[in-house]
């Protein structure tokens, strides 16, 4: 059955979308970019990072483009001073929450969080840093989990559950205490379900999950591989 065609305006430009698409998907299909962090093409969107917020005319609320479905006749704004301001605050709060020290990070220069901050022109953070004391899990023979660099985007959780089917990762606790956790809070090296496939590492936007053996600035993620794997398997969420 052919899907219903919808017409939507994105930043004033009339585009056609398909029913069931999210705003983000429709925008991408038409070559429009919306800033994102937690979204990874092929995985179920969760709306965790709030960078993809957009304005929809007729309402004052801001909506995450990655989880909001398009509707016929919708008029969406993706760039505005208000949105920039909100996106910057979201980013600053991500920096405040953990210990992001780029100069000592394997992903320095290839980090989506860092790239996003550069794009938004963030050079200082206006809020007090949280400086949590967090562990680095080195127990896996090939990979490292550094909670200090985690932004809780849950891409690792989703790629492991949805694509690998192992479901090793989850988020434990809530609020400021939320952490990525493997199995029953086991060390990664002891996680029985882990197949060592490394998909979580490739999906991670920062240096929180990395391969061992790389020095500062050397860990380049291949998250395109994940999206193309999804496309080939036809399990698109």
């Amino acid at each position, binding site marked *: 059955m052919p899907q219903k065609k919808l017409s939507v305006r994105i930043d004033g430009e009339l585009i056609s979308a398909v029913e069931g698409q999210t705003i983000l998907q429709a925008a991408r299909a038409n070559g429009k970019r919306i800033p994102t962090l937690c979204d990874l093409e092929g995985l179920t969107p969760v709306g965790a990072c709030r960078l993809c917020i957009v304005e929809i005319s007729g309402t004052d609320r801001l909506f995450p483009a990655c989880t909001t479905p398009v509707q016929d006749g919708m008029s969406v704004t993706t760039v505005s001073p208000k949105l920039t301001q909100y996106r910057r605050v979201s980013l600053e709060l991500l920096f405040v929450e953990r210990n992001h020290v780029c100069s000592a990070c394997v992903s320095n220069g290839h980090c989506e969080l860092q790239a996003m901050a550069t794009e938004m022109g963030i050079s200082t953070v206006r809020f007090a840093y*949280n400086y*949590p*004391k*967090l562990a680095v899990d080195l127990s896996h023979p090939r990979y490292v989990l550094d909670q200090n660099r985690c932004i809780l985007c849950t891409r690792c959780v989703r790629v492991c*559950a949805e694509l690998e089917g192992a*479901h*090793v*990762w*989850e*988020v*434990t*606790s*809530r609020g*400021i*205490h939320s952490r990525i*956790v*493997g*199995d*029953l*809070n086991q060390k990664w090296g002891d996680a*029985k*379900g882990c197949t060592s496939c490394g998909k979580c590492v490739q999906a991670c936007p920062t240096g929180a999950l990395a391969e061992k053996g790389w020095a500062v600035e050397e860990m380049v993620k291949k998250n395109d591989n994940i999206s193309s794997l999804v496309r080939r398997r036809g399990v698109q969420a």
Partner: protein
Amino acid sequence: MHEMAKELLDAGERAFIDQVIVSKDERPGALLGILEAVQEHHPHKYLPMETLEYIALKTQTPLSRVYSVATFYALFNLQPQGDNTICICRGTACHTRGSRNLLESLRLELGLTLEDESDGGGADKILQTTPDQKFTVRTVACFGQCALAPVVEVNHHICGHANERTLQREIQTIERGSE
């Protein structure tokens, strides 16, 4: 690991969990109810790791999912609870009515340490049990009884307008009752 869970739980415990799982009929979202019933059944009102593992195995839920659910809800305990639970409200109304001092004096009274061991500086979220397993002290964000602030719950019984004296008396009553 799964084999370990079977070894560590005795047959009665396993039978009980099996029965709870069956009674929940494999409905989606049944996990919450299962965890609750199993915790309630435990003499120390908590969910040991072996139990979580066994539930995961039996309900075919990923271990991480079970752990995530059990740590998301304040209702679930992963540590053994004392015979008596004293719960102090740290909500805004109770805070302005001095619940911090109340909490501190209670912890002193029961000989619990005052430094905060939990990570991330969450000094307002406390769950401590005395070494003799008699008392557990915990906090909540709001009981919804703000008009009675400060509110303390002693063994599921609400005491409004609590002060140090009333708390001391409650503890004495419990201690006398257990002698």
